[in-house]
């Protein structure tokens, strides 16, 4: 199932410093010691309680922040957070926003333009695409954001919870595509509170608590242990 190694995290730690005033600081270790490997075709689920450091881990893998301790080896692969409406500007047209968004996700102008019709089709926005995004309803914006994120996939897709977007019909459609994506050979890292979701969608899982790795490996085993501990602690 696993292919070549794409990204490796080795004993990474992240410390956030807060400045209260000029001379008064405080810090917080979001991650203390976490290691994991992401190989081609993996779908890695990240589970843990609120504040366990899941989102920080995702930002590290996405190259948004750098670790204070440990190393991240990225074998020249593109990673992006599956984010809705990335870089959207209310005043720009839907088309311009889709172009900017696609480029921010790591694609050249040419590549984005080649996929533009597919994006518009999926978002069902033919009549509105050349109007400013501020005239869109919340659902329309979400649909556009979602289709861009889906059509323009990087080597490693990072997902921070699956968001329900649009009306019921669109939600159903997007869930189906999302599942397909998760089960295909697209490499993903999926952060979720829902252990059941991780179990059904991911082949590997990592459980982090207070910035440390508690357990990692086969998703069914890790999720089983996680659920057990949740029940024990009430």
């Amino acid at each position, binding site marked *: 199932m696993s292919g070549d190694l794409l990204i490796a995290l080795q004993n990474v730690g992240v410390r956030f410093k807060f400045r209260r005033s000029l001379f008064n600081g405080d810090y917080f270790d979001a991650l203390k010691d976490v290691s994991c490997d992401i190989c081609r075709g993996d779908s890695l689920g990240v589970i843990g309680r609120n504040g366990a450091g899941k989102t920080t881990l995702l930002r590290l893998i996405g190259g948004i922040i750098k670790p204070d301790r440990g190393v991240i080896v990225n074998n020249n692969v593109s990673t992006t957070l599956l984010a809705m409406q990335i870089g959207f500007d209310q005043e720009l047209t839907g088309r311009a926003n889709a*172009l*900017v968004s696609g480029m921010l996700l*790591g694609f050249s102008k040419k590549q984005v333009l080649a996929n533009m019709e597919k994006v518009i089709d999926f978002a069902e926005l033919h009549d509105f695409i050349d109007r400013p995004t501020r005239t869109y309803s919340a659902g329309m914006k979400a649909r556009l954001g979602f289709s861009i994120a889906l059509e323009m996939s990087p080597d490693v897709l990072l997902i921070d919870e699956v968001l329900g977007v649009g009306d019921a019909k669109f939600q159903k459609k997007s869930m189906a595509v999302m599942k397909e994506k998760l089960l295909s050979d697209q490499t993903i890292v999926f952060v979720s509170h829902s252990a059941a979701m991780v179990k059904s969608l991911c082949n590997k899982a990592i459980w982090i608590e207070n910035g440390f790795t508690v357990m990692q490996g086969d998703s069914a085993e890790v999720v089983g242990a996680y659920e057990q501990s949740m029940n024990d602690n009430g």
Partner: protein
Amino acid sequence: MLGTRDYLQLIQIKVAGNLKAESSRDYLGYLWWLIEPVFKMLAYYFVFGMLLSRGTEDYVAFLMTGLIPWLWFAQTVSRSSMSIVSGKALMMQVYIPKIILPTIVICQDAVKQIIIFFSLLLFLYFYGISPSPHWLSLPVLASTQLVVIMACSYFVASIVPFMNDFNYIVSTGLQLMFFCSGVFYSLDIIPPRFQQLLILNPMASLLYNYRRALIYHQWPDWSDLCLITLGSLLAVLVMWRVIKRLDHIYPRVIL
């Protein structure tokens, strides 16, 4: 993975989109770019030309030639100061070189300024100042000013994310600089020992040279322009390196 060329295209798309959006938002659209300096000019003319009767014979032309480059400088610097902070949502989702954020503001205002400068020349012509070959130095003057603007904009943009308070200093600093740049007075009315000091302010020197070229039919002082360009260029290069070094720090400090 995106390269420099992709990022340049991205800047271009954003700038074009923003300019179009800016003009379609208001009823008068692009006209506001010209109406605003005229309104400001009228206010200064009322105070300094009439109430304080400091106005010389071509005071309106004098004011316009000072105000238009000044407003370009002040607006770009103050808009840039928040550019990295307001890119917060974006930089939490993808990696982008943060230098892009102030660059978009700088480019957007620079494009606008081309139209404004053309209108200034038209205005001077109808005001009765005959066009002269010295007007040809306007692109050189404007390019010099652009480098000054870049240096100041990158500087303030790089600091504000660490210290939000710095924003107050920027607006006070701009006001002080406005009074020290000779926008509404000529530098020769102040005592000579301060004149030396004021000319250290690149905007004072630039406004003086704009007026020489556009109103008084003289060539600008080339050595002044060279010095300003070189100094600012050096500052721009330093700021590029600084912002690059801080690329992964910004997403942590802007919370």
